[in-house]
């Protein structure tokens, strides 16, 4: 596992030099590649538009993570989950 954060055991030094007001001030870029953010945005847009809620998607994500090799990039499992959700809904993307 990579080492995270400032590594401090107390609160104060951790963010003392961070400018306030920046939303991601103690976050990090959440996507490693454009296709990852695309996959996230597509799923969110579809969940919203279809009104199906995240639970069905999450069930597919859990299955995908469990079945794919442990070193599979996280968002690849996410893509597999979208495909499975769409298949449920009778929408099969061309492979």
């Amino acid at each position, binding site marked *: *596992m990579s*080492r*995270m*954060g*400032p590594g*401090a*055991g*107390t*609160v*104060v030094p*951790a*963010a*003392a030099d*961070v400018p*306030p*007001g*920046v*939303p*991601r*001030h*103690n*976050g*990090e*870029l*959440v*996507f*490693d590649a454009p*296709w990852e*953010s*695309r*996959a*996230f*945005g*597509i799923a*969110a*847009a*579809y*969940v*919203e*538009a*279809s009104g199906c809620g*995240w*639970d069905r998607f*999450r*069930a597919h*994500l*859990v299955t995908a*993570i*469990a079945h794919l090799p*442990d*070193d599979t*990039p*996280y968002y690849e499992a996410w*893509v597999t989950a*979208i*495909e499975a959700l*769409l298949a449920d809904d009778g*929408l099969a*993307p*061309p492979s």
Partner: protein
Amino acid sequence: MSEHHHPSPVSPVERRVAAIEALLVEKGLITSDVVDAVIETYEHDVGPLRGARVVARAWVDGDYRARLLADGTRAVGELGLGGAEGEHLVVLENSPEVHNVVVCTLCSCYPWPVLGLPPRWYKSFAYRSRAVREPRAVLAEMGTTVPDDVEVRVWDSSAEVRYMVLPLRPAGTEGLAEDELVPLVTRDHMIGTAR
């Protein structure tokens, strides 16, 4: 021969994502503009600063703290926060005797409205598989040593519940105002991988 620039080849997963988007757009179910807007929001607006505001409020306002611990979703709603993955938010209070740590062993459940999207280590097999089994070792690797006389409680997120940790207010901050406390709270404090 063509002088055209050839970008790097499209990977299989990129192809799959493009195919999904094309299909849903063609069916009129989503638009690429909406996808763009979602990405923009989660890359720039929704992040742990929101949770930090919640924590700072709880540190200065005992009544708010009580409401937050009683019903997290409702209390963050008072600050205008809510939405996907925040429907059943449970806030776990650290104390001198107890340190709370959050994980999602099955996937990546995480309270988006207060913390944004999870960092990559939170989604990693290593964290998901080890956080429950050997939390103190995992925390130590991340730079946080929890004293032996402090109990570590690990909370596994589920489809029903999202957790956020209310960290201890640091000593020496008694004179600070709410706004001054906000930048002292990090994402990792609210996951529990920092104390």
